[in-house]
């Protein structure tokens, strides 16, 4: 059976997650430790700052589960009281949980892509340690496939859900391409820096930082290989910028409508994108009325983000359906897997018997014509196939409902397959 033990940001407080994450960092020692537990056939674990998940293929017995759980708890130094943070999922529920995790349906920010990369790393590590087998290999491939389907078939990751990325998307809708666009950051705030970073990541060039404190401006400008100026040079800087991000602590407007009108007169490129993330506002709202000027304040951006979050939630419903489909497919395959080795050995055994008996018959069959001998061989083969057909079919049918174990065991005993 497949089992998944773990905790995440929903079930465990940060303090617990931190401890467990720190304890699980070393895959080299951890994977062999799990594999050494009696009844564990395959295993893999995923540890990130938001979650730790141990997935294993085990024999169905409570002791194995218990041992897995205590080993994991020991790693993070979890007390018995903290054990309630852990969840244990079996079979279909475990598969579903894993698929939801890789599809980022279980993430703090739904639709983020980091988790998929982390899951791929975890799988690579387990592969390197030979900790996985047929069942887990396919499970992980299916988990990645589910994640890919969710990303391409739903809009879950389509629209940005952070203010800085929303600003980038807007900038693209205004300018088309950000390549070569000039950015002016007014005030050396963290939010402005983050937005600037994303804009540069999308092709923007030439960053100018204007700040009351020259030293702070210089420090931020250096990060972007940009230029630092004092607030007194703001007029000139405005005339050269395409995108202005303002986040000063100034009590009143520091960029007025007049300043912008004058700056626009000196510009070649007409479009100007103003992002005002300061509270109280830095840019006179009247500036938004100016032709070819697009002004967004923090509330506008937050509204866009909220709307996108809502949309992701709607898309998540579609994603859940995809996950369910993928779970059903994998689970069917897995259930058949239970019976498959037995069916294979049953067929091999029968094949062997046929061959031995035909060899024994070589003596009295030598006098026969070739055609007749082939007919006899085909007849024998046919009879064996007919006899095996029913048990094989029953095993397959039963395994589709996860109840093949008894029948498979009976078949192994009846045909003495384990000898």
């Amino acid at each position: 059976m497949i089992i998944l033990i773990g905790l995440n940001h929903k079930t465990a407080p940060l303090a617990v997650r931190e401890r467990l994450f720190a304890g699980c960092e070393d895959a080299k020692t951890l994977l062999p430790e799990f594999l050494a537990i009696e009844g564990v056939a395959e295993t893999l674990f995923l540890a990130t700052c938001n979650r730790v998940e141990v997935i294993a293929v085990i024999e169905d017995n409570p002791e194995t589960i218990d041992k897995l759980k205590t080993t994991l708890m020991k790693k993070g130094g979890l007390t018995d009281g903290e054990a309630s943070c852990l969840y244990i999922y079996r079979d279909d529920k475990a598969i579903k949980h894993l698929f939801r995790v890789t599809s980022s349906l279980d993430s703090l920010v739904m639709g983020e892509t980091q988790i998929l990369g982390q899951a791929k790393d975890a799988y690579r590590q387990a592969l390197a340690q030979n900790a996985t087998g047929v069942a887990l290999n396919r499970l992980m491939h299916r988990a990645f496939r589910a994640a890919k389907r969710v990303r391409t078939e739903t809009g879950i990751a389509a629209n940005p859900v952070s203010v800085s990325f929303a600003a980038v998307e807007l900038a693209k809708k205004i300018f088309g391409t950000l390549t070569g666009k000039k950015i002016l950051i007014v005030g050396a705030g963290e939010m402005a820096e983050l937005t600037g970073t994303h804009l540069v990541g999308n092709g923007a060039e030439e960053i100018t930082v204007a700040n009351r404190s020259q030293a702070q401006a210089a420090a931020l400008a250096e990060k972007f290989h940009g230029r630092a100026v004092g607030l007194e040079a703001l007029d000139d800087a405005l005339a050269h910028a395409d995108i202005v991000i303002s986040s000063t602590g100034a009590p009143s407007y520091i960029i007025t409508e007049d300043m912008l009108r004058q700056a626009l007169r000196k510009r070649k490129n007409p479009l100007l994108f103003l992002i005002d993330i300061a509270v109280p506002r830095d840019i006179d709202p009247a500036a938004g009325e100016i032709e070819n000027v697009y002004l967004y304040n923090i509330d506008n951006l937050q509204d866009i983000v909220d709307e996108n979050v809502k949309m992701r939630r709607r898309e998540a419903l579609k994603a859940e359906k995809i996950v369910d489909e993928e779970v059903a497919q994998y689970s069917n395959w897995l259930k058949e897997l239970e019976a498959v080795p037995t069916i294979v050995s049953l067929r091999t055994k029968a094949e062997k018997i046929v061959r031995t008996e035909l060899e024994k018959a070589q003596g009295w069959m030598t006098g026969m014509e070739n055609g007749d001998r082939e007919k006899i061989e085909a007849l024998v083969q046919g009879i064996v196939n007919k006899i095996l057909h029913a048990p094989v079919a029953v095993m397959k049918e039963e395994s589709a409902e996860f109840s093949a174990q008894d029948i498979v065991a009976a078949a192994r005993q009846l045909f003495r397959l384990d000898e």
Partner: protein
Amino acid sequence: MNFENVELIFFALAFFLAALSAAGYLFSLLVKRVMLAKISTWILAGAFLLLTAYLIAAAINAHGFTNLGPRALFAFYAWSAGAVYLVLQFKTKTRLLGAFIGPLVLLFVIIAAGQEAGKTILPEGLQSWLATGHLALSIVGEILFVLASCAGAMFIMQNSLLKSGKFTSMSRLLPSLGDLDRINHLCLLCGFPLLTTGIIAGAFYAAFVWENLWTSDPKVIWSFIAWLVYGVLLHQRLALGWKGFRMAALSCIVFLLLLLTYILVKLCFSSLHNFV
């Protein structure tokens, strides 16, 4: 094999694809999916190829491009609209512009379908390459101005969406302001010289045929006004640096005015250019 049938088949297929792509574009606007617009672009490319094949077949049947009839003339309108749009698709990713161009192409094809296929538009014995060139250049020039105005209309839509401080799915679907402004610029820049050359070719043709450079034909006057107006637009853009919203708005207003006067001219006056 009867070659006139081939011509007809090409035209019918082009008609079908043009209708399909126009529907696709409009539908993509309705369901707000760019994918549909992308597919429609490919369908339009197919319609364009078929129109090309149709024009060639028609020219072969008429023994030369100078003898083409009214149907081919309107097919050429559709052809150039398709061509200009598809070329722009290489430069910018503005598939949604097709929501304007697709129906326009279809409109021209529909008009073409209503025209006689056979007889030539030019008076018997007066066919010449100068006249054909005059028509072709003027048509492509006019189409470019139409496109400049379409881009302007979309600019105005996107502008008002973005100015509202919200970011709707409609806004996501429409091309960016920068791209639309660039299209407006490119179309004016290419359209003006083409129309100029077309008008000059027409004047020369008139000089040869009627020994008169200037006929006070209402449509000639209208074309001259259109030419002047677009010259002014281009001047504002290049010399005065008008860009963005103002240019977009002006393009649209000018286009609507010209369309209106054209319809008036068409309804109220008889002209040498009765075929358009």
